[in-house]
């Protein structure tokens, strides 16, 4: 049986890992390659590297970092942040990235998903969606620029469109849950998982090990991503896997 995936996420700024609390406060944590190797050795199933300052700063440092990661890490990894054109994705592919994630740029130019899928294959294209639940009703507003700008798009229809355009996976971050450590947005995750036929990665809200179990059981997610609980040693990957296994969830 296919195992549920645990994915530590490393936010990168100036070649170093950081984690934003509610996407605003930033604390420097450490060297990405060193941290990534440690996670791979501990049994992390995949890694995500997000260049959170990519839109504003040069890409060169990040592409060089991706080269180093690809050389040292023996599990799959996704890179994202500031990818707005085919050539950005191509540079990262050539540097050794297994997948890229696109977010704001796909919202602004949905055709980018088609282009990326056509040129590099769907398996290479993760569409990341940051969304915030609307005050009235059950839908979620898609946000861009790290949650700073609201868009006309709605989570479920946008995720479906992304799938139809050729996305290989959806990485859904609830902006209401991110950084507050009260669990993932399980209802929205379950709706996504049941209405789409591509894998869904849960993101935003991990505070304890039971939250991961809930994302898999209630949220029907295929993978769960977290950052600070791993970076600050609040949860270790081996302990988490052991706990999930004891709860009857298939993990590697």
């Amino acid at each position, binding site marked *: 049986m296919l195992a549920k995936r645990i994915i530590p996420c490393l936010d990168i700024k100036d070649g170093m890992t950081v984690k934003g609390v509610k996407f605003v406060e930033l604390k420097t944590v450490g060297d990405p390659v060193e941290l990534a190797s440690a996670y791979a050795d501990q049994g992390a*199933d995949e890694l995500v590297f997000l260049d959170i300052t990519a839109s504003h700063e040069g890409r060169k440092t990040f592409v060089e970092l991706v080269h180093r990661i690809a*050389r040292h890490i023996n599990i799959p990894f996704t890179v994202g942040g500031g990818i707005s054109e085919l050539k950005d994705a191509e540079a990262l592919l050539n540097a050794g990235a297994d997948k890229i994630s696109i977010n704001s740029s796909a919202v602004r130019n949905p055709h980018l998903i088609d282009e990326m899928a056509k040129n590099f294959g769907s*398996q290479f294209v993760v569409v990341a969606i940051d969304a915030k639940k609307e005050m009235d009703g059950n839908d979620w507003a898609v946000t861009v620029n790290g949650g700073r700008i609201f868009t006309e798009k709605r989570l479920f229809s946008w995720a479906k469109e992304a799938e139809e355009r050729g996305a290989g996976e959806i990485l859904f971050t609830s902006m209401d849950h991110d950084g507050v450590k009260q669990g993932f947005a399980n209802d929205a995750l379950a709706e996504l998982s049941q209405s789409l*036929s591509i894998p869904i990665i849960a993101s935003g809200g991990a505070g304890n090990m039971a939250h991961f179990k809930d994302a898999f059981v209630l949220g029907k997610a*295929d993978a769960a991503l977290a950052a600070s609980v791993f970076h600050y040693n609040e949860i270790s990957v081996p302990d988490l896997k052991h706990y999930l296994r004891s709860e009857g969830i298939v993990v590697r």
Partner: protein
Amino acid sequence: MAKQNIVIIKYNAGNIRSVNNALLRVGYDAEITADPEKIRSADKVIFPGVGEASTTMRYLNDSGLADIIVSLKQPVLGICLGMQLMGSFSEEGGVKCLGVFNEEVRKFKLPDTNSDNLKIPHMGWNRIFDLKSDLFDASLEGQYVYFVHSYYVAHGVDTAATTDYILNYSSALQKDNFFATQFHPEKSGPVGQRILENFLKL
């Protein structure tokens, strides 16, 4: 292991370098080339691949690489799309393939009542069973490896490993000097590293 001459076939497929990164991690350095002489004279040939079957087959036919691959006598390892292209036919683009293995490549179909919320592609870590090739050793039975694919090879005479996703299918094949894995050993942690080392020991 003695020093050997390893070639990774260069063609229009994605992420070929990641296989060499994995070889570098175990102390080898392959040459990534499309030069027929270099491919023919290599000790080991690796045929990786991520991409679409019919476009890639057209490229292999036009470039003459198709004829070279099927004529190789040294150990050859096909990975992912590389394995599928070594079959006889692929539903992806409805294309005739290299025919090293007499197996067709079909698209996964989700079950009618998809109560487990299975997805296509089959993406992530899954286990390999009933291992039957020198690519594997006893320590690898039931271990997890990394997969990303929407098409599969059914069980057949050349099945060298079995994986359960929607159905039991061939996650590895072997016939004579031709070895192939549907999963990505280069991305499968220490388990994948061991499989690559086993191939290099052949």
